């Protein structure tokens, strides 16, 4: 099953779990499934238009989903990992 990786500060929502397996065939479906298991994730990840919120990055394996052609519609398979990574400042 595709797997979500939950970063430290957001694990209160996932009851402490670092990873959450979800049944889904695309990224949006994975978010919906994650939200079904641990309610609250969907509203935090997606805005009212269904777009990814600005200060949240979602990586499908090593690729930022915003840079994948199909975006949130990108297909996910058995061994895919989706990581939530909060935006970072820097330079």
């Amino acid at each position, binding site marked *: 099953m595709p797997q979500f990786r939950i970063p430290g*500060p957001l694990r209160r929502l996932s009851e402490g779990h670092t990873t959450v397996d979800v049944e889904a065939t695309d990224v949006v479906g994975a978010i919906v499934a994650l939200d079904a298991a641990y309610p609250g994730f969907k509203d935090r990840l997606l805005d009212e238009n269904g777009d990814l919120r600005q200060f949240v990055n979602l990586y499908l394996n090593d690729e930022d989903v915003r840079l994948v052609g199909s975006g949130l519609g990108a297909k996910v398979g058995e061994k895919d990992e989706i990581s939530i*990574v909060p*935006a*970072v400042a820097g330079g």
Partner: protein
Amino acid sequence: MPKVIGLRCRECGAEYELQATHVCEMCFGPLDAVYDQALLKKVVSRQRIEQGPKSMWRYRDLLPIEDSVNVVTLGEGFTPLVKADRLGAELGLRNLYVKNDTMNPTNSFKDRVVSVAISWARAHGFETIACASTGNLANAVAAYAARAGLECFVFIPVDLEPAKVASISVFDPNIVAVRGNYDEVNRLCSQLLESTPWAFCNINIRPFYAEGSKTLTFETAEQLGWKLPDEIIIPIGSGCQFVRHRQAVRELLEFGLVRGDRVPAFTGAQALGCAPVYNAFVSDTPDRVLPVKPNTIAKSIAIGNPSDGVYVNRIARETGGVVEAVTEEEIVDGIRLLARTEGIFTETAGGVTIGVLAKLARAGRWNGDETVVAYVTGHGLKTADVLASANGHSSRRVEIEPTMKSFREKVTI
């Protein structure tokens, strides 16, 4: 009584105890340091600042470091605010200033944020300082960690400019060169956060780190005789410092350090080769900053996925500023223009700032009497290689024999 009382989410306002974290558990928004405003109102004054050290620590009351803490300092800040008459004459600006932040201990504005970050981290028991960096931050972190006697890990993209790598290495930090771009380095560090007890300057202790940026604007106001300029031009990487400069102006007004209520226009500068904030600013949806893959010589601001991009666009719009971007050629022209007219040698990010300043001036943005300040945030020796690759030999260079005859033949005086 502590002056920093906690952290607050910039999006939803949720409050947290003082700790090394940067993300709101409620909405995933960024966290900012919260001060006891009543306490600050009592203590902050021009007089206290003017009696302080000739460094950015003269604004200590407005930084998130308690009075009891020994700060880690190399004398950062209070850099020259240069009245740029010759550059101004070329651009039709009679009141143009360059804030020369190349004059910091490790030659970039990052010394300001790192001095605060490491002071905070050491005071809160951290033994290892780390960062993800495009070079300047790693340079500052390595130097200040050496100064503080702390362990240091810096994570940099593998293709960083050789001059930057050399000036980081000399401080003997652990350098991890990551085969990826800055955004990928950042992502790795965000994930490492969980398995290391380290203070990552730009990640888990960002709320404190970022506060150091404000001092650039505090100084600018003080050096203008406690006045705010009409417009400030700021280079945009993550947009983190841009947001803090807006906060600095709020504090200058709030605590009566400058009079009136007029807020300067905040203008952002990006390289077209990595312009996610500019792309959004000129689009119909400035609140949607889409990431890009960076491809520019301005590596110190080559952040394809800027954390504060949306806030930059809001602030630019609200204050009557703009976000503008320049080509690689205009960046090098900007470096040369500043050097030729003012004797200041800046790195590529400064070339972006001056390039945008020149572009806007030539497009008639100003009538000529406005007070405009350009923040030049890093020294030219950090990226001197771009001048070599862009025909670095001056057209005014001649090579001669060590004889009077050769001199007379080849040199026009």
